């Protein structure tokens, strides 16, 4: 509870007296490039395989001859867009981006770089952290879109290569009963997850005290707490928005 309070205070301090919009914009772009470019590869690999595995497992379970093969394509689409792409991507990013943010900020804290900013009269929290949050909120949905696309592609490859269904059947499945709101829902989720991961990791990193050992600890805590927060938020979003 005390943690939650200081977390909220921390969030408040970010928007109070922030740097000039020009600097904020430039820093956000820098961070976005770092977070985005660095994560494309891992997100791509993970989502392709998730799509492939989903497809293979569904086709393994669908043994009833009355259900058309195209259902596999339909189910892969539903599962990846609604749940797997945003959530698994976010969990992967919690590991990658979250530990990176917490480790970076923690190191800056213990080597007095944060103090150096403060002495210059700069609001270190908003200078360092706000761009990371904005960049995450901006970049995560893009990564999730890539993940959706690649996991559906992964499903296609796995399905056709294993001979479970033909390409035509998969595509027919993909195109049946499409609900555009699902995409919106997934993107809203990814923004929520981005906010949670970046703020929790920043909070953990920014308030690191001690030495190198504690920086490692903060990173670990940042990842575990972010993952839990993502899963809880996932449930809440599903309840509220669906």
């Amino acid at each position, binding site marked *: 509870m005390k943690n939650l309070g200081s977390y909220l205070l921390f969030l408040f301090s970010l928007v109070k*007296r922030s740097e000039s919009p020009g*600097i904020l914009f430039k820093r956000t772009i820098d961070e976005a490039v770092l977070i985005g470019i660095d994560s494309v590869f891992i997100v791509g690999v993970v989502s392709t395989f998730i799509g492939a595995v989903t497809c293979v497992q569904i086709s393994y379970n669908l043994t009833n001859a009355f259900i058309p093969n195209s259902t596999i394509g339909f189910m892969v689409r539903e599962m990846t867009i609604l749940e797997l792409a945003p959530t698994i991507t976010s969990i992967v990013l919690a590991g990658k981006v979250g530990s990176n943010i917490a480790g970076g900020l923690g190191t800056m804290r213990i080597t*007095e770089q944060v*103090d*150096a900013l*403060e*002495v*210059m*009269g700069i*609001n270190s929290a908003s200078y360092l952290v706000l761009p990371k949050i904005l960049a995450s909120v901006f970049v995560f949905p893009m990564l999730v879109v890539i993940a959706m696309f690649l996991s559906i592609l992964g499903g296609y490859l796995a399905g056709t290569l294993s001979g479970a269904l033909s390409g035509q059947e998969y595509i027919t499945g993909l195109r049946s009963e499409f609900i555009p709101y699902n995409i919106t829902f997934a993107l809203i989720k990814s923004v929520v997850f981005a906010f949670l991961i970046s703020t929790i990791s920043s909070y953990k990193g920014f308030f690191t005290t001690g030495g190198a050992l504690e920086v490692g600890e903060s990173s670990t805590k940042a990842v575990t707490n972010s993952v839990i927060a993502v899963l809880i938020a996932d449930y809440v979003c599903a309840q509220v928005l669906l």
Partner: protein
Amino acid sequence: MIEIHNIHKTFGDKKVLDGIDGVFESGKMNMLLGASGTGKSVLLKCIVGLVKPDLGSITYDGRIFTNNKLDIRQEIRRKIGMLFQGSALFDSMNVNENVEFPLTMLTDMNRTERKKRVEFCLQRVGLENAGNLMPSELSGGMKKRVGIARAIAPHCTYLFCDEPNSGLDPLTAITIDELIKEITEEYDITTIVVTHDMNSVLEYGDNVMFLYKGKKLWEGHSSGIMDTRVKELNDFIFSNRLMRDAKKIEQIEENEQRDEDIRNGEV
């Protein structure tokens, strides 16, 4: 001018600062002297507001700093240049960018002016060729010098240096001391230097404070420091081998003189 009054600071149950008073005048080399762990860095951090003192007040040219509104503290801080004990360079930026950073953030110089100022400051600390190196590629002493260049880059009004010449060779150490003294006098800024180095204290200390276990035991011009009767300060000074040798030679000479006087008296 910076005035501090009755500064107390305790970490847990460890009393680090125990009622420190002091006046640091502008244009002078104010030096904080003391053994390792006596709270010099903590005092400096209290003065710039990175550590909140439990008790006491700090004023910058008559403006109250402690517990004042954040805006006012920020405004004062924008006039502070500080060298940290561990240099605290931004490790995602190269040397040029480190020195340029406060110029970008705190001044309205344009790009060419900034470049020129960076070049000038790096040259002053003897690092004109290191501009493109990253902090991880620098030696400890080079980091110190970049830290000083960054601190002095935006014409500060207050300059704080935590051990500017520890880890430097004697020659570079003198250059750095000279540099700090020069800009202090030239721009009439208020400078506080934390040091262990008796050489720089004796050479440059206009106002020396000796801290011992969180208390100020001695204060005065460096010329008077050798005659002090404060035992802890004496121990501190003469723990330095060269100083001890100098003292020994002095004593030997004194003894010889006395012997001679006695002999002369006898004759």
